[in-house]
């Protein structure tokens, strides 16, 4: 089995397109960080020309004002009698943190601080997802369109093993891209942004505690990776079933880009909760999903169920198919 994976990995990296994707990922992530830096400096300039000193006191007042606004916002939401119990618990935790900040004078990280950049680095998952989908869509389909499938399957290796090696290669590629993107993002955060005196807080066991910015960073990255796997599994299935890489890429990206709009439109209906493209786990973890009653375990379970179904369909079709290409 390891030899088969080795084969898939070799084929993958012998294609120019793979290297182009890897380079685009690095360039894209570095570019985004550069852009953020540029925006931060222009904002800084504007603030300076407005006659307000950027550092120090003004900043401290800024975060206090924002925190108080946030506290009021959360309190207003908590007043809603229809609130689900899970959402209520989330809001209460958020409230606890905001009140702790105000009471103990614990400043949060500034928007353009190094820590904040580290914390938000799971954003690179979008790039990784895009390229992982392209690879997943083509890994089976191109064997058919190039006619190499005949050579590949007329071997003393059962078909499910071949498909497993391909899926493993896809998942590994997704993991590699995610890791590379993350590392680039972190390196750029260290190069371009300076740390500030803010502190990251979390509620653990009912107590507010200080945590490192790395904790939410890694946590969100792992959650984003789950999303990547689900989308790549979808693309993998379409590619295996319809033997068309173009269709698989098109459909997966279409769902990726329009999925949240569709589920927003359907959000009044129960069905929206059971669509795989409704759930961005990072958003769910941050309490930013617009669907009611969606907790992280629920969203993860829905995604897991879809991934299993996608894989079952892929295996059934691939191992039963008569190769006529």
């Amino acid at each position: 089995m390891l030899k088969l994976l080795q084969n898939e990995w070799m084929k993958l990296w012998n294609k120019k397109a793979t290297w182009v994707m890897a380079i685009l990922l690095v360039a894209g992530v570095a570019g985004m960080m550069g852009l953020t830096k540029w925006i931060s400096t222009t904002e800084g300039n504007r603030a300076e020309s407005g006659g307000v000193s950027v550092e120090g006191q003004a900043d401290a007042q800024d975060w206090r004002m924002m925190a108080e606004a946030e506290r009021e916002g959360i309190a207003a939401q908590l007043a809603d009698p229809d609130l689900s119990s899970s959402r209520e618990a989330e809001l209460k935790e958020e409230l606890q943190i905001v009140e702790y900040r105000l009471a103990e004078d614990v400043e949060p990280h500034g928007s353009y601080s190094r820590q904040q950049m580290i914390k938000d680095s799971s954003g690179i998952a979008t790039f990784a997802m895009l390229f992982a989908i392209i690879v997943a869509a083509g890994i089976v389909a191109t064997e058919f369109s190039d006619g190499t499938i005949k050579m590949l399957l007329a071997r003393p290796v059962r078909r499910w093993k071949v498909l497993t090696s391909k899926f493993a290669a896809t998942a590994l590629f997704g993991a590699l891209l995610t890791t590379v993107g993350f590392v680039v993002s972190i390196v750029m955060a260290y190069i371009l942004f300076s740390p500030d005196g803010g502190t990251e807080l979390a509620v653990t066991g009912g107590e507010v505690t200080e945590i490192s910015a790395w904790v939410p960073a890694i946590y969100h990255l792992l959650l984003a990776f789950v999303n990547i796997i689900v989308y790549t599994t979808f693309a993998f299935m379409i590619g295996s079933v319809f033997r068309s890489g173009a269709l698989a890429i098109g459909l997966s990206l279409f769902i990726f880009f329009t999925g949240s709009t569709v589920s927003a439109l359907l959000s009044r209906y129960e069905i929206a909760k059971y669509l795989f493209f409704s759930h961005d786990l990072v958003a769910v973890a941050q309490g930013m999903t617009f669907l009611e009653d969606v907790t992280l375990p629920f969203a993860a379970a829905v995604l897991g169920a879809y991934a299993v179904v996608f894989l079952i369909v892929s295996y059934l079709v691939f191992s039963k198919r008569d190769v006529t290409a």
Partner: protein
Amino acid sequence: MANQAEPIVELKHLSKTIRGKKILDDLNLQLYPGQVTGFLGPNGAGKTTTIRMMAGLMKPTSGEVFVAGKSVQNDFEAAMSNIGVIVENPEMYKYMTGYKNLVHFARMHKGVTKDRIMEVVRQVGLENRIHEKVGTYSLGMRQRLGLAQALLHNPKFLILDEPTNGLDPAGIREFRSYLRSLAEKAGVSIFVSSHLLSEIELMCDRIAVIQNGKLIDIREMKEDTRPHHYIEALPAKQLRAILESKGYEPAESGAGFIIEEGVQRIPELVKSVIAGGLDLYAVRPHRKTLEDEFIEMTGGGQIAEAVAK
């Protein structure tokens, strides 16, 4: 069959129905070690379907293929480890070198070493170009690489679908003698489908003919040694009358007739043709080609039924 050896490959009651259409109907065939068997049939007869079922690419509706006693359908990995396949044009990974392609396929078999890969590369004469990308190869070179990948694991049974497609005459000749030596020296059983009847004729010990999904004939090559002559004279009607009066069964062929006759009675026949006042244009020994036989066998439905065993 004149063979005492156990068959290495057995097709037992192989049938395939695709969307209600019977592509193959109860095909039975045995292939023996050291023998090259040609597989002939008109387009759409079920050749490709048969080959794909033997290569594990398609599943039969009923029946089984056994290779070295193992069922391709029920003991896939054991059966396939004895088979080398070239299905139609060998499609390789164009973006990799020939060598990497071979490494790729070698990893899918047990016990194929780097030395073995280089040995096969030398055998097919690709050592100078093996580290170049397959995308730069000519069709003939790809055929060689295709043969190399099929031979990596020393298969006991080799399936070749249209193997000489794209080879130049010298390449075809070399390929043919290579296959013959594989069969004769290594005892490999070879199954070749081709449209080039003259190729099959030169390469094979035996031919199997398939039509409308049924095996209509299996015959050893060179078993038909009855001599024939071709005779052409005008008017043709009178010639036919003369031939029939002499007890021949003239078969029309072009402008003349083919009769079953050695050399003994030819002078006498010529004399009577001249004496009859006919204009004699040609008399020459005629050797039935495989093509003639093939057309004869598959040409008419009645013939097909009469020959079917």
